[in-house]
């Protein structure tokens, strides 16, 4: 158990942008809301999953909708209490702690707003170990948990409950209601118990985000940028796949999702190499000279070569120098069911999922990467 104040929130937000694997939206608005709530109500208690009573009722508050709309119209702040009251009434039991559904972007911050406003502890676990675009893409849903009941609210106090069984249907209805609420809304979902979260969630994710953020905010503690990168790779169990400059970016929006391709020209020892990354909100496939090096659910994430600051897909910019990093996904995703849910074929790429470590090993043997 420890407490999370403003300084810790800043670090967590930075780390969450990295763990968002390009997606999750700009965490800035979430960070400002969380900082405002903590300044008003005081710091939030962070519990390890093992510190939560096994039968405690826990749930996950999050924002849903278009991140760009959320930058313009963000919540009133009272939605969270309304939703929680409604959920409590429905469950007939109060909620004892909250957790983030995903580590990436704005949703890494929402539980802290709720925690501060309602005096609830936040649990150091999530349902993805990264960011993904759809509700059913969580390790909890994968383990057979119900996403519903979902309670959604908008800034006017409109409350909607969704209670459907199939995870895909939950996603479909929630998305439709979000549109009616102005393309951005708040929601609570994935209610479970302390024991079930400890078993089926991705544990320690907030602490991991904070360690990443702390490192990035304290680069001066390292003798060289190379030493800082090594430390970052150690925290994330990651590998540097390419050091490169962004030389082309193509964006397209299909069915509300942001699709794109990014071309990288290698720098230094990688100067004879060309990288290519495909993203659908999050980064999905990365290849070097036509050899695939990493695919979802493993994390493909970009950091600035000088600041190690994560580069989300909204910040892609011609000429930006980045390290392309490959981070292994949580083991819960590396099962046949997990790969069906969030592997490359789900995103319409005709590729088998091969763990990033194995792809790296094979690519190194062929001299495709260093």
């Amino acid at each position, binding site marked *: 158990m420890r407490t999370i104040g403003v300084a810790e929130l800043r670090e967590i937000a930075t780390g969450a942008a990295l763990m968002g694997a390009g997606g999750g939206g700009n965490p800035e608005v979430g960070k400002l809301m969380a900082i405002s709530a903590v300044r008003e109500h005081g710091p939030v208690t962070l519990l390890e999953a093992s510190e939560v009573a096994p039968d405690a009722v826990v749930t996950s508050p999050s924002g849903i909708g278009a991140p760009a709309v959320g930058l*313009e119209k963000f919540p009133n702040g009272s939605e969270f209490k309304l939703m929680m009251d409604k959920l409590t009434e429905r469950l007939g039991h109060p909620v004892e702690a909250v957790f983030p559904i995903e580590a990436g972007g704005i949703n890494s911050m929402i539980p802290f707003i709720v925690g501060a406003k309602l005096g609830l502890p936040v649990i150091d676990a999530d349902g993805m170990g990264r960011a993904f675009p759809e509700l059913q893409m969580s390790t909890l849903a994968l383990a057979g948990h119900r996403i519903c009941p979902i309670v959604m609210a908008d800034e006017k106090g409109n409350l909607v409950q969704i209670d459907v069984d199939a995870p895909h249907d939950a996603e479909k209805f929630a998305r439709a209601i979000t549109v009616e609420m102005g393309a951005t809304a708040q929601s609570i979902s994935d209610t479970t118990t302390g024991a079930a979260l400890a078993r089926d969630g991705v544990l320690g994710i907030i602490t991991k985000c904070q360690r990443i953020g702390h490192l990035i905010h304290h680069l001066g503690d390292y003798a060289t940028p190379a030493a800082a990168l090594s430390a970052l790779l150690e925290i994330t169990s990651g590998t540097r796949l390419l050091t490169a400059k962004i030389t082309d970016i193509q964006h397209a929006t299909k069915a509300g*999702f942001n699709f794109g391709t990014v071309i990288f020209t290698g720098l230094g020892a990688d100067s004879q190499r060309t990288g290519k990354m495909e993203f659908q909100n999050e980064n999905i496939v990365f290849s070097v000279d036509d050899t695939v090096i990493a695919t979802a659910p493993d994390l493909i994430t970009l950091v600035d070569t000088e600041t190690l600051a994560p580069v989300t897909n909204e910040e892609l910019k011609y000429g930006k120098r980045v390290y392309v990093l490959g981070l292994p996904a949580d083991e819960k995703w590396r099962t046949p069911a997990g790969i069906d849910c969030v592997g490359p074929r789900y995103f319409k790429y005709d590729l088998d999922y091969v763990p990033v470590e194995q792809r790296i090993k094979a690519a190194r043997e062929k001299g495709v990467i260093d």
Partner: protein
Amino acid sequence: MAYRLGIDVGGTNTDAVIMADNTVVASTKTHTTPDVASGIHTAIAKVLAESGIKPAAITAAMLGTTQATNAIVERKQLAAVGVVRLGYPATAAITPYTEWPADLVAALSGTYKLVHGGYEYDGQLLTAVDDDELRATFTAWRGKVQAIAIVGVFSALNRDQEEHAAAIAREVFGADMPVSLSATIGSLGLITRENATILNAGLNQVIRRVTSGFAKALADEGITAASVYLCQNDGTLMALDFAARYPILTIGSGPTNSIRGAAYLAKRSDALVLDIGGTTSDLGVLVHDFPRESSQAVTVGGVQTNFRMPDILSIGLGGGSIVRTQPDGSVTVGPDSVGYQITERALCFGGDTMTATDIAVRLGHVKLGDPALTQVIPQATAEAAAAEIQRLLADAIDKMKTSAEPVDLILVGGGAVIVTAKLAGTATTYQSPLGGVANAIGATIAQVGGQAEKLYQYVSVPRAEAIADATQAAKQQAIAAGAVPATVDVVDIDELPLQYAPGEATRVKVKVVGQMA
């Protein structure tokens, strides 16, 4: 003959040029003074004297100035601003001024109110504006605030509510009350647009002082027949009365002017521009005659804003950068500099500090001061320092390039002598004897611009119609800023689809320029 006078105020120097059509008739450089205004005055007097032109023959005068930036950074002369945000019940989770530096909030009075209003992403009403609520708010602020900032949720879609609130403000405070509308200032992103709008409102008195000071300086020198403009940070001009309403747009005009002036001197439309000053080198990218814009949030005085700024990479290397031999024998250059004291402290001028300029003199690349005084620098040290300078610059160039192909480079600025050989990654290098006043030339050749950024749903507003609408708005802005309507042309159209948003919601940004009246 019609002459144009351009002035650019930088951190160290205030430069002025007079041009006739496409020729520079006279140019001058003078130190920037702490009050800025007297330096401008001196520059005008000097350049007029040098040119021998009758003041009455000057038909246009343009000023690029740092006064607005200085006021924000120093928290001086800022107005007490009343901020009205139209969005309640949405957006209350983050109040205005969240995460601002406390002293800047105090300087602006920190007065704000969240009121009913705003639109949804598709243009529907979020909440109706409550006239009584607005009137009561403004009435309570009487005598407490000197400027008003009005910020509405999704005002990029529809600015009716912001304009309605402004009309009520003028009813309450009188027609002279300066009112800044966010729809006319920033782009999508409520917090960053609100921040820019608050700063714009706070600069109201500063900009009045700038415009009246410039008008007076011109009149004092007998320049009475000129149309007068201020430079914007996108490389275009605005007439004084327009500039008085949009002071925030003057921030960052210096680097833009430098890039545009360099382009003009080299007669290039696409190139890298390297402006080497006394302490820093600024590298920008010229794309179709205008600087490439930064895609990053811009921080002004500790506040995040989202208005357009040129994409500039600054490194701590200039003509006055101090050269040192380290204990391990390596040679370093900068990032500290003797700055404007170069004429006293550099070895070639009889000083005791080895600077980047001394290296160029020692290697016989340029003749400045007394070259014999640089003979104390060992040949090996000079060569190592020159190599380090080349490396620092080549590295910066590589960061700004978008392809591995060599690019054309335009070299300007007073410190450009420190470049002693062709830089890695470059093709042709262009230099001009007038490179030292490129920024003032950039101010002089600028056209009048306009820009509009709006959000459309392509399912209900077809793409062509949306682009035509945004173009119309940009043209109206250019004409309001002083452009001749028939000469206004589109220079850039940028479309950005919004993810997860239904109806093919797309942000359309159009930039136009035209000739000045």
